[in-house]
């Protein structure tokens, strides 16, 4: 699946259009970065509310192609710049993490 497949009126992409072509497979939801590092699998979409710039570092280390911020959390300009440098897509939505996962399953994206 591509990051662009997720996008509809409820989701917004913050990084350059090119990152919308990032492919992902499965997803991991979590807000504790050490647990994400331990459990997320390479290629997963990360669903979280943590907009600290370190979330990008975790995505780089765990080979996660995209981060989706839920519950209205949005990335800072610095975070967007860092993510673009690492070619990681940043998205956001007002939905909760559970609503995101249910939505992605319903649309056969997971």
């Amino acid at each position, binding site marked *: 699946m591509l990051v662009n497949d997720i996008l509809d009126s409820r989701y917004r992409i913050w990084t350059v259009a090119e990152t919308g072509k990032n492919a992902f497979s499965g997803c991991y939801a979590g*807000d*504790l*970065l050490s647990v994400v590092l331990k459990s997320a699998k390479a290629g997963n979409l990360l669903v979280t509310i943590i907009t600290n710039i*370190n979330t990008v*570092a975790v995505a780089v*280390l765990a080979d996660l192609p995209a981060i989706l911020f839920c519950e209205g959390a949005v990335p800072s300009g610095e975070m967007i710049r860092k993510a673009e440098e690492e070619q990681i897509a940043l998205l956001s939505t007002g939905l909760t993490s559970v609503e995101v996962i249910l939505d992605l399953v319903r649309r056969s994206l997971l």
Partner: protein
Amino acid sequence: MITLDRHFVIVPNDYNEAGKASSELKRTLKRMGFSRDLIKRVSVASYEAEINIVIHSLGGTADFKIIDDIIYLQFIDCGPGIPDIELAMQEGYSTANEVSRLNGFGAGMGLKNIKKAADDMILVSDCNGTVLKLKFYIREDDKNVG
């Protein structure tokens, strides 16, 4: 033969720079063609150790070396030290403050993740600081993969 020798200064409470040394290490290991499994183990351990210095210490350093078929990571900080290492090694135990927790840290998994990832770990701490030494053995099937 030494094939990697890097030194980094780690600044306390600088969340923006946290993880920089580990990200660079990961890129270097990838360039050197090691297996994904080895790179992940080294990167995870390095990141957790780096974050621990940022969150808990007064600052410190990280040194990465590859000598023959062993990757050595060494982290040294200037204190205040870990009062009870046994307790700190327990999963879920954390002394991270509110700011760190809001930034996604403080899961109490750091040292546990490091121990699991590394082939060998030595942790020494007193009020003057903490020294963490890690070894990762490069096996034949970890080479020339990437």
